[in-house]
């Protein structure tokens, strides 16, 4: 499959070069100044979820993470290829439920902390007891619901 991609890429490049020679230099005399700047529109998925194969989207319900900028109804981008570290907002498996918390790995304990004073932190006995489902990289918060 990789070889197919390489071949497709090579063919694509060859095509581009040919096109450029025909359109720009040889026939038209002067290349159009704009054609070097031709590019695709910004695609949000490229920027918000660069690892498509390992990224899942989920919808958040609840109020315990408002301090982290995650609100009830937000969509979350979860990149499972990232290894969870201290300080990451993670989705942990707690009693079979997917739960969003801030991961704090301290010298003597592991804590899944809420970022809303009204909600308690959850102490994890040890790192081996912790099951992280994925690392949350982005929260999509809708500011004007239009429909």
């Amino acid at each position, binding site marked *: 499959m990789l070889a197919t991609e390489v071949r497709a890429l090579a063919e694509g490049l060859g095509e581009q070069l040919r096109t450029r020679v025909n359109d720009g230099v040889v026939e038209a005399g002067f290349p159009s100044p704009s054609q070097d700047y031709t590019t695709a529109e910004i695609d949000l998925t490229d920027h918000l979820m660069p690892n498509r194969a390992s990224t899942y*989207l989920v919808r958040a319900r609840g109020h315990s993470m408002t301090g982290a900028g995650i609100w009830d109804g937000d969509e979350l981008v979860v990149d499972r290829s990232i290894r969870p570290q201290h300080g990451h907002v993670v989705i942990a498996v707690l009693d079979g439920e997917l739960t969003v918390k801030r991961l704090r790995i301290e010298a003597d304990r592991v804590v899944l902390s809420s970022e809303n004073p009204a909600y308690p932190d959850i102490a994890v006995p040890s790192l081996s007891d912790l099951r992280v489902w994925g690392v949350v990289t982005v929260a999509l918060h809708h500011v004007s619901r239009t429909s």
Partner: protein
Amino acid sequence: MSPAPREAVIALVDCASFYASCERVFDPRLEDRPVVVLSNNDGCVVAMSQEAKVLGVPMGIPWFKLEPVAATQGIVARSSNYELYGSLSARVMEVIGRHAAWQEVYSIDESFISLRGTVEEVIQAGRRIREDVARCTGIPVRVGIAPTKTLAKVALLGVKRSAPLSRVGVCHFGAYSPTQRDTILASIPVTDLWGVAGRLGRRLANLNIHTAADLAAQDPGQMRRRFSVVLERTVRELRGTPCIPLEEEPRQYKDQLIYSRSFSEPVTTTPAMRQVLSIYAQQLASRLRNAGQEARVLTAWASTSPFATDQEPHSPQISAVLPVPTAEPVTIARGSLGLAELIRPGTRYVRAGVVLTDLRPAGQAETLPGLGPPGEGRNLGPTLDAVVARFGVGSVGLGYGGLGTPPSWQMRRAMLSPRATTHWDELVTVRL
């Protein structure tokens, strides 16, 4: 001492209980529980987790028979979530592909890749693939490694047999001594081998060839003369000589295309059957065109339930040779509609299908002006596909398949999990 050889080997990477594993990704409560996945219309069990196999749930058992005991045994059932399985399969295959220069995606849950290295290096690579796929996608995979595809499948059987529920999931055939390899081959029924189906298995049994070791001991040339070149290759591959290359491209040209479904509610009238056939024809035309093929022969059929005792069984069928080979939906729909005239109104039909055969690459036949299919040149197929892609299945259809009330016979999926990776409205909820 010379360094250990860095040989090219083939790894077969296989998803463990793929459908059940997909169901677990977004629902961790299903972990360690027996999970069964049901066929179209929640008819019967088509896939299950290892825990369900251990309980002895028979593959194919109708759900109505399993349901009464399911709850007491803790069995969880799910309708087939094809959208989810397809999406997760593509992700798994992409992650596997990152680990190899060559990859063949063999099925929705199996992929062959090539690896190079010493036995120890390749086993390490297999472990990295397992770890990477599990972390990135949530799907557990197992890896069987050997010099040939056939032996890679044997190595994978070794993984499944030795400890189906354990975390060990990589087996390298080359890690065993020749004596051990013979013992392994002698333990594997010949019908478990890749490409040896049931009928061939019975013919081999008549020749006293029961295990992989029995087959490996045969003369390859004789196997070709008595059976086929395919079986000759299997013999050579069992002896360690690669004969079946990795196919980079998906096998493109199929011999036939089938679209058949059970209805959630019986179809009893000619108009309802016309609607069924129109929709099936549109689906088939779309698949055919995506495969770059055209069909010449069409067969359509419908059948009553074999379990119904209060009516005569009836299975009407028609075949039609299309005017020219085509992938054009109107022609295919017209060809199949004749079946609707053959049904007995009032009789309850539970299943229908359309089969296209005599397939060939598109664009080979020449058509005389005016004699081509009615939709030809009007780009009808691509237009229908574009509308469906934008507005969803059922948004537009041919003739009888198009307008009016949504058909009542469409697929029943009462225990469907969220289509969490393909439908924005079905994203899985996480707790804050």
